């Protein structure tokens, strides 16, 4: 029997305090929480930073450190600092030291790092140890070397190595969302199919139940089943809410690829134990022939400066598309004339908010809004060039007329300065797996006393 307490879908999202108390009183074997996601885009991985506020992370982490102490069990966070890159792990280790020191406590901390030096990945590519997933960007040595961060997603092997150090607190770099929950039960002899399935359902906390914002979820494993229980008042798991969670952020609702194999829930059964809890059986684990870990990486693809102007004049709202395309064309020509930049070193877009800014070419509807936001987006190969072109674009967005005859118009600028420098723009550039003979070969585990 293994009991895991999941306070919330992510560190930084909060939880129902009363439900967490119930979870602590039930004496879990592990408190596990996810710290990250690719969902907010490549910039966090590219820069190795967290998307959540430090203050919020620190406040919640302090509560969980205290919760684990009272429950007398280890505490693990996976994908620390949103992206799980080394700098983000160090950021959470710093916060942990601060929390411990301010509360006059000490703890043994295991730190699992998932960073991949570019040269290791280049060598693995050379050795035929990198396999593309679908769809995968084209890669070569130069692209790999241009990445600012490359991480591998740890599975249960690496997480269990960290748990086995006997640490009070385990801070892991990039892991699969599920590995931090699946690892301990599998080590305790639970069927891997059940453990991975429970982890997938439970990784978002109470999102698999009614009252999803309450966060706190308890999972109990025995030999042939697992039971999910959301712990907040009014939060209930039903066979429908639980099975429907396999849809969430999964491209395939039956199969989930993990390091070392695939979870298959086609034959899983979901049974209501009572109004609150669901018992799940029948999930299967299909081991893979080769042990692989997925890679994630980000690199800089340019620099941006943006501007926002608001159109309220009905004539301009009606003809915004003509106006915007004309500005793009004129400003592009002016940039080539006034700067040393060639056409392939920059792009200028005037995106019309209120018209098709969300869907672009996929938009199927037309309607006439009261106003339109004209979002100027300059992308260039250097930050200086982006800023310079932003200044060339500014007068057009302020005064460009639809016709030469009319009196010079002026549009509404909400900000001064109008140009907003966004800095480096990153892209995800790997969707590949790396084959490993030894699961620990690509990961680093360190234990420190704090």
């Amino acid at each position, binding site marked *: 029997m293994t009991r895991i307490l999941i306070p919330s879908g992510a560190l930084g999202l909060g939880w129902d305090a009363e439900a967490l108390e119930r979870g602590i009183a039930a004496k879990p074997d592990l408190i596990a929480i996810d710290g990250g996601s*690719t*969902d*907010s*885009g*490549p*910039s966090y991985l590219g820069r190795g930073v967290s998307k959540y506020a430090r203050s919020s992370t620190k406040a919640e982490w302090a509560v969980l450190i205290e919760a684990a102490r009272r429950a007398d069990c280890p505490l693990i966070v996976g994908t620390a600092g949103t992206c799980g890159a080394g700098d983000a792990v160090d950021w959470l280790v710093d916060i942990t030291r601060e929390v411990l020191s301010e509360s006059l406590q000490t703890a043994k901390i295991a730190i699992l790092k998932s960073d991949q030096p570019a040269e290791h990945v280049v060598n693995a590519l050379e050795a035929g140890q990198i396999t593309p*997933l*679908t*769809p*995968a*960007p084209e890669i070569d040595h130069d692209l790999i070397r241009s990445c600012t961060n490359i991480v591998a997603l740890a599975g249960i092997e690496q997480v269990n190595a960290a748990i086995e150090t006997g640490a009070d607190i385990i801070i892991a770099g990039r892991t699969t969302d599920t590995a931090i929950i699946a690892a301990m039960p599998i080590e305790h002899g639970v069927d891997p199919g059940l453990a991975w399935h429970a982890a997938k359902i439970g990784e978002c906390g109470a999102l698999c139940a009614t009252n999803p914002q309450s966060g706190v979820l308890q999972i109990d494993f025995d030999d042939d089943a697992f039971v999910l229980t959301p712990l907040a008042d009014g939060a209930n798991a039903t066979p*429908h809410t639980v*099975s*429907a969670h396999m*849809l*969430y*952020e*999964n*491209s*395939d*609702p*039956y199969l989930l690829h993990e390091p070392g194999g695939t979870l298959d829930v086609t034959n899983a059964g979901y049974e209501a134990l009572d109004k609150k809890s669901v018992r799940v059986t029948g999930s299967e684990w299909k081991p893979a022939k080769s042990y692989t870990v997925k890679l*994630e990486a980000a690199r800089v*693809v*340019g620099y941006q400066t943006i501007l926002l102007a608001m159109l309220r004049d009905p004539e301009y709202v009606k003809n915004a598309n003509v106006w915007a395309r004309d500005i793009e064309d004129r400003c592009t020509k002016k940039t080539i004339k006034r700067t040393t930049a060639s056409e392939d070193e920059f*792009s200028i877009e005037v*995106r019309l908010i209120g018209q098709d*800014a*969300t*869907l*672009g*070419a*996929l*938009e*199927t*509807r037309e309607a006439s809004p009261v106003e339109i936001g004209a979002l100027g987006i300059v*992308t260039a190969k250097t930050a200086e060039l982006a800023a310079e072109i932003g200044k060339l674009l500014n007068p057009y967005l302020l005064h460009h007329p639809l016709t030469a005859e009319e009196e010079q118009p002026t549009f509404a600028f909400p900000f001064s300065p109008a140009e907003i420098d966004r800095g480096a*723009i*990153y*892209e*995800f550039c790997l*969707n590949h797996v790396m084959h490993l003979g030894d699961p620990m070969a690509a990961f680093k585990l360190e234990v420190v006393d704090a």
Partner: protein
Amino acid sequence: MPELRNVAQKVRSKNAGPFWITIDVFCDTQEAFERVRDGLNTSATATLLGVPLQTLKRFDMPELNVVKISIPRPEVQGTIRDRDMHGAAIASLVAEMEIA
């Protein structure tokens, strides 16, 4: 022909990792599910979303009264051409499709 949003209970779209978007069409009755299952044209959906038909994955799930469609992202999440970091707005486009 009715729009999908008038037959289904809810249409949701979300990233499934940086390279895929998944769209879940939830129905509140078996009847509505069968209507969506039979009336939602896969090929027209691929065209609407701007992806080749052979890359689209579709799952008709009577056990949940859900039709699930997954597509490789038309633009990889967060690239300069991507407009919707979380893949959230594709749901509206699909919800407005006419179904047979």
